[in-house]
């Protein structure tokens, strides 16, 4: 048998051996390798990293870093605010929020908190700072303009009028 053919059969044998290793070694190795690449999910979906938390007596408001769309992405820049836990929220929330942390309130966010988690939410946002866009009776129109309940958190995304 020629050397080339011997190498070919060796490679084929190693492939069969690799098949044996897939569930016990290779799959985990590649999964961990992928996870270690330092990739992150697009902030248009994840909402960006949390930068500050405002604590009230019963609940807290997490303020995220503003998210800006890439290239031709069909969304507006926005900032995400999380009210948590939903169980501690009153039946109607109306909060003045200092989004940029300069000590002055930037927006007033108002929404009802229905007891049934499946009831659609609507939010009103009054812009006290022209950087933020007002919203009236908004549900979940776009990733950059919505109010939704995710598990025990109510998320509000407010578009930026002047990024």
């Amino acid at each position, binding site marked *: 048998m020629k050397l*080339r*053919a011997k*190498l*070919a*059969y060796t*490679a*084929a*044998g190693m*492939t*069969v051996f*690799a*098949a*044996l290793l*897939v*569930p016990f070694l*290779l*799959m*985990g*190795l*590649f*999964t*961990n*390798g*992928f*996870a270690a*690449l*330092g*990739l*992150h*999910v*697009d*902030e*248009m*979906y*994840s*909402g960006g990293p949390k930068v500050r938390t405002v604590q009230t007596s019963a609940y807290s408001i997490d303020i995220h870093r503003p998210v800006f*769309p*890439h*290239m*031709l*992405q*069909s969304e507006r820049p926005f900032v995400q605010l999380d009210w948590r836990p939903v169980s501690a929220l009153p039946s109607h929330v109306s909060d003045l929020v200092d989004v940029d942390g300069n000590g002055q309130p930037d927006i007033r966010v108002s929404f009802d908190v229905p007891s049934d988690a499946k009831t659609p939410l609507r939010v009103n946002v009054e812009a006290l700072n022209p950087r933020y866009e007002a919203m009236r009776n908004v549900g*979940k*129109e776009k*990733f950059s303009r*919505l109010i*939704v*309940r*995710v*598990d025990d958190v109510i*998320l509000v995304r407010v578009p930026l009028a002047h990024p």
Partner: protein
Amino acid sequence: MATEARILKPGGTAPRTIGRSLLLTLPIALWSLLMFANPQRHSNRSLQIASLITAVFMIALFFMMMRTTSTYRWRRWFFVALGILFPVGFIHTVIMMRGTMGIPIEEMIAGRTPFCYLPIPLLILPAAFTKTLVFPGSILPGGGMSGAGMAAMAGLWLAITLVIGKGWCSYACFFGGIEEGMASVPARAKLRKIDPRWRYGPWAVLLAMVLLSLALFEPAYCLWLCPFKAVSEYVAARSTVGMVQNGIFAVLFAGLVIALPLLTKKRTQCAFFCPFGAFQSIFNKTSVFDVKIDRARCSPCVLCKTACPTFSLTDESIARGETLMSCMKCGACVDACVKNAIVWHIKGTEVACKPERARLMFLYAAWGMAVMFGGSIIAEGLATILHVFV
């Protein structure tokens, strides 16, 4: 004699003895037991029974492959079962978890969008340029609807691709079985004259979707063109755009996965449209296994070309003694050849040299992956049926 004739492939290779076939099946039987003897399954009786049935099914099919030396028709049973049972298990899971097949925006924000392998090629450029995955899922194990996360699917895909290359499309893809099942329904193709330039369709779709995904920063194929959204989960129709998207999914599914396979007896979605299939073709170049034509034996009668479900054989490629890079190693051409001229092959060896050895080595690798990945999906689907109806 009549029974023997029925189990022979057209080329007339004599069947193996039952004892030798059993011996060759033994490694796969042990592998199947290893894969399905998962202690976690023991808590769920439906899954336990389904796993047992699946293991017997996979072992029996491999035995028949060994006994008859025919590959395609036995593999097809597995593949069609996978294509039918994946949506059964998947739809049941999403309905149980969120009450609808439509994925709401809050599930996307929560990173609970199930991630299949089809968008993998679309994520590469945005990830390379910005380290961002343009998919509303979770990266790490523990995330995603199944708890697996994108990293787990990427790891599984990479590992299986390393072993069987484009063979993924015949032994691991949980969508292709639907159209393969449809293609096997009619006795003859009603639509035979198909412009060969349609073969470039998947490459065109791949290029367009990769560029669109980079420009729009969204998984464009999943949002606009995936026919299998019709049998997995669709965009929750919150607006006119959502309804248009769902209309496109339904039309593509009805056309490419149901109607055209019935008319052409081909896997038309895979052959003309699937961008993942085109991407996976690249890995045919890295795989050690391929399918070759022994030109000394070939007439050429082009039975292989007619049998190929993805138009991966042309008159020119037959003259060159090889398949096109879109060949997914399903074995249809090898089974169809009456002269045993088209054979399984290990790159670097002589074409006519021990093709059955090459077939065996490929099948051990490919069927091992089929049992591990496809088998577990079949078992989940069967368990759903057992759980719901029995």
